[in-house]
């Protein structure tokens, strides 16, 4: 459609909003209430413009012409229109520059500021505030309002993480709409009316994994990140756009650091991946970076004590120790959120030392690489049938939000010259959701089930049987045996209906995560199911770069030990990066027998206490490199200016160790690692664009060596994925105050039987490791089983806990 904005004519698709036409033409109108990916509602009345269009004669269908010029006559709307809720029409004329429009905008700014407190100097939004900017651009700079402003609560804690200043609120309704439209829980609403309106919620806190996003979209300083309150002004922060390494989604984030400290994390826009939303784990999970016990210099054990030394001395010590160790006896293990560059460095080091004992952890027993058609996030958002096995809201929360996009049935908007449309007119408030297209299966009730048309709780630990039964339904005509029906966890008809729905869908997606990955048989079954119903698959790996590290083969080569075996006597020397296996006393005993234990970590922990050499590691916010998210998208990781002392990532470790060994290894620097990766994957990773790069890797993943590992079929504790990493929560009081402690979830009957009540802090030996947690009683948990968040050392799966070791602690939280 042809549209004329001021003096610029342009061609736009029908259905575009007038505000987007204005921006596409390179002009500007102010707005507060519109927001990318949310419904336009015209609440703030800032985007007023003079809008008109030619008219057709009803009878003849011809354009009514202006008698003087002979051109189609423009009929203007009788009043100024809010451009965000106006769709363009053929030949529409939009005027944003006339005095009339300017006057209206000026008036609206003045009106909006009537009740705004103007405490900008103490407001954390100051300097990045939309109202401030718009008041400068469009306001008159003067107010005629000489009366008392509205006074309301200045510091209302909406939750531990978010503060609400009710005086500053300008009633744009972004946060209210956000909760209803994006995570789908209408937990905030306007209370009262007129000038007394305020944002509020009934009940305590905000029950959602995505609450932090409202601080990003608030156009004023009403909703603020409580964890970064007063830490700095917006112009003082160094903003670093990078990729979040908290989960496998590869969500784009902006790390704001000041004087070497991370003060806050905000969501960045990546239309293909996370849009402009991130989960609370990614946003608030950074507190551990500035922990006081951060290791900042290399340490070497001398006469039983760890003594600070230089990197050269530490690596020299390692070199001397390595000389006596035969090739196969050395193991190198990375944490699975290490970058590709670190993976290459580890591989180069392993090759040079001729050890095949290389691994990453947590590495599920089954491959995290999708087989067959891999689904992208956009496939998920446009899918017409989705089958989820697992707890996406905790594993990879970004997937949860994209599934909810699919429920709305609105495909991702086309990009305009100025980027994502500001007002997508297809989106409405309270859209009906097509819950029927979503089926969720998990061993216990998960949050996404509230939004699913059909949900199934299959028996705990029964993934393989459950999926095999479904495969049988999809492929074989035979009736299911009684056992198989039991494994299905739902009536057979419903199972058939699910299969039918998936098979008939144009764009079906099966999403599976750690529960399935815990067993190769279950994974094979889900792949078979996907093939049978011609669905694409999305695999939620346990960590940020599980996909990438497996793809480049940071894994034990043939007939060598895996990580779990290495730490239990399979190696004589170990280099561990970012891991803490010594929490398990039996492993700690085994580690004591090592000839050399090098630990590359950020903090002192049980394993560093046993180490011969401790090397300071960079956190995910300080590294430069590349990760591969669960779609197979290469995403850039950039370093924020954080004071990490002499810490280095694994490429740095390999550089120093290479110097000590007298070799120049691949991956001794990010640059050399990128060169090696180009060779390995045929992808140029230099200067990756912000939105990442989807490229087919040249080399196929290495064949996984099948290490005989017993599949657990029984146990009383199910280790489950969690959005907030328990290894950080349990060691950081700030995080714990915000998110609550690591939770041990129980069924009420079990709790009664074990004489436990909610809120009690307990210690329990789970699979040999002593875990601390707070009891939470919930009906969603199946009877006879306890849920506990998994850690890298204790990956998702069914394990046994010795209930005799259960000890109640006097609650530290209460005392504090």
């Amino acid at each position: 459609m042809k549209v004329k904005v001021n003096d610029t004519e342009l061609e736009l698709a029908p259905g575009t909003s007038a505000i987007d036409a204005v921006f596409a033409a390179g002009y500007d109108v102010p707005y507060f209430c519109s927001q990318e990916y949310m419904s336009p509602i015209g609440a703030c009345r800032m985007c007023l413009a003079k809008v008109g269009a030619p008219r057709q004669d009803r009878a003849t269908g011809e354009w009514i012409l202006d008698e003087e010029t002979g051109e189609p006559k423009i009929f203007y709307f009788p009043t100024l229109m809010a451009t965000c809720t106006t769709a363009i029409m053929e030949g529409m004329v939009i005027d944003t520059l006339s005095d009339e429009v300017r006057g209206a905008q000026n008036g609206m700014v003045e009106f909006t500021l009537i009740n705004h407190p103007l405490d900008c100097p103490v407001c954390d939004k100051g300097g990045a505030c939309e109202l401030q900017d718009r008041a400068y651009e469009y306001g008159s700079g003067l107010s005629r309002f000489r009366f008392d402003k509205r006074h309301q609560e200045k510091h209302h804690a909406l939750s531990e993480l978010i503060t609400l200043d009710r005086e500053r609120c300008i009633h744009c309704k972004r946060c209210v709409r956000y909760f209803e439209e994006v995570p789908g829980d209408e937990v905030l609403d306007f209370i009262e009316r007129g000038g007394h309106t305020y944002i509020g919620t009934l009940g305590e806190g905000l029950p959602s994994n995505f609450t932090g996003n409202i601080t990003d979209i608030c156009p004023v300083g009403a909703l603020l990140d409580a964890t970064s309150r007063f830490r700095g002004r917006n112009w003082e922060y160094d903003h670093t756009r990078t990729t979040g390494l908290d989960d496998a989604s590869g969500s784009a984030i902006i790390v704001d650091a000041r004087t070497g400290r991370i003060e806050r994390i905000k969501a960045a826009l990546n239309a293909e991946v996370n849009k402009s939303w991130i989960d609370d784990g990614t946003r608030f999970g950074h507190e551990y970076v500035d922990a006081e016990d951060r290791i900042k210099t290399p340490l070497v054990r001398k006469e039983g004590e760890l003594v600070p030394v230089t990197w050269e001395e530490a690596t020299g010590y390692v070199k001397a120790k390595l000389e006596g160790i035969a090739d196969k006896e050395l193991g190198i293990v990375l944490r699975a959120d290490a970058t590709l560059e670190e993976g290459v460095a580890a591989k180069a080091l392993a090759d040079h030392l001729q050890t095949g004992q290389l691994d990453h952890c947590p590495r599920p027993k089954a491959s995290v690489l999708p087989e067959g058609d891999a689904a992208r996030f956009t496939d998920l958002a446009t899918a017409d049938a989705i089958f989820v096995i697992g707890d996406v809201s905790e594993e990879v929360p970004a997937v949860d939000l994209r599934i909810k996009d699919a429920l709305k049935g609105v495909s991702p908007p086309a990009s305009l010259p100025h980027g994502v449309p500001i007002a997508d007119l297809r989106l409405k408030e309270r859209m009906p959701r097509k819950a029927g297209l979503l089926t969720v299966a998990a061993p216990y009730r998960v949050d996404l089930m509230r939004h699913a048309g059909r949900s199934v709780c299959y028996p705990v630990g029964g993934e393989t049987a459950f999926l095999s039964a479904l495969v049988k339904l999809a492929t074989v005509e035979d009736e299911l045996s009684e056992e198989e029906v039991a494994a299905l966890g739902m009536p057979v008809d419903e199972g058939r209906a699910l299969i039918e729905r998936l098979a008939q869908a144009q764009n079906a997606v099966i999403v599976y995560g750690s529960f399935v990955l815990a067993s190769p048989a279950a994974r094979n079954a889900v792949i078979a199911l996907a093939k049978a119903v011609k669905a694409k698959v999305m695999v939620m790996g346990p960590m940020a770069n599980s996909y990438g590290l497996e793809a480049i083969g940071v894994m034990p080569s043939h007939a060598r030990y895996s990580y779990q075996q290495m730490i239990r006597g399979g190696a004589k020397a170990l280099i561990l990066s970012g891991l803490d296996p010594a929490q398990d006393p039996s492993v700690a005993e085994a580690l004591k027998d090592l000839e050399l234990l090098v630990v590359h970590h950020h903090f002192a922990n049980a394993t560093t206490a046993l180490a011969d050499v401790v090397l300071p590691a960079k956190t995910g916010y300080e590294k430069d490199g590349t990760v591969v998210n669960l779609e197979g998208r290469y995403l850039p990781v950039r370093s924020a200016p954080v004071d990490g002392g002499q810490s280095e990532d694994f490429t740095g470790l390999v550089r120093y160790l290479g110097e000590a060994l007298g070799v120049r290894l691949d991956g001794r620097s990010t640059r050399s690692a990128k060169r090696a990766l180009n060779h390995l994957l045929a992808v140029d990773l230099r200067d990756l664009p912000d939105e990442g790069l989807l490229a087919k890797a040249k080399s196929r993943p290495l064949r996984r060596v099948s290490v005989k590992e017993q599949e657990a079929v029984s146990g009383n504790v199910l280790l489950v994925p969690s959005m907030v990493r328990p290894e950080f929560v349990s060691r950081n009081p700030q995080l714990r105050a915000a998110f609550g402690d690591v939770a041990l979830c129980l069924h009420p009957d079990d709790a009664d039987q074990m004489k436990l009540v909610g809120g009690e802090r307990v210690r329990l030996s789970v699979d040999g490791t002593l875990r601390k947690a707070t009891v939470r009683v919930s009906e969603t948990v199946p009877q006879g089983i306890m849920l506990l968040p998994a850690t890298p050392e204790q990956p998702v799966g069914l394990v046994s806990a010795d209930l005799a070791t259960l000890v109640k602690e006097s609650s530290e939280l209460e005392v504090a």
Partner: protein
Amino acid sequence: MIELETVKPFFTDKDELLDEILGRYPEYGRRSAIMPLLWEVQRAERHVSEARIEEIAEILGMHATEVKGVMSFYSTYHEQPVGEYHLQVCSTLSCSLAGADEMTDFLVEELGIVNGETDAEGRFSLQKVECLGSCGTAPVLQVNDTYFERVTRTRCVQLLQALRSGELPEPWRERGGDNVSAEKATLGGDDA
């Protein structure tokens, strides 16, 4: 929380009423029943407590916050029990210009309660509300469901006397022509 457990749900033995109300709306518009449900509770209990809000939210499959949002929009619904006579003073523009603020001050002084309060005997409640839609006859004072228009100081005193003696007088109706010139000493006019 204790209250929530002990209070008997309002709609438990009122299935017929519930069906009737919900039956007025199509299934996809179930949430529209929020107003009549709130009204039922309010009529029976003179206010809608948080427990009732949650109960209604559950019936309609909404979040309690949303119900509270709707409820607080209308000044006719109360979260706290109100007194026998609920005095609502319109405080929007027309009434404000015609002296509603002075009327409020007068009532505050007379009754000894401020905006949003109920007196100790549970007799009077005072509330400033948004536009009552009778701008032509400002200032307006609403007592329970009755409008008293063009309230002057004299009329206000008389009204209070009547209310104190326990009767709600018939409202004086003065729509149409401006025939109160003899009494143009409205409260605002007095002071001006």
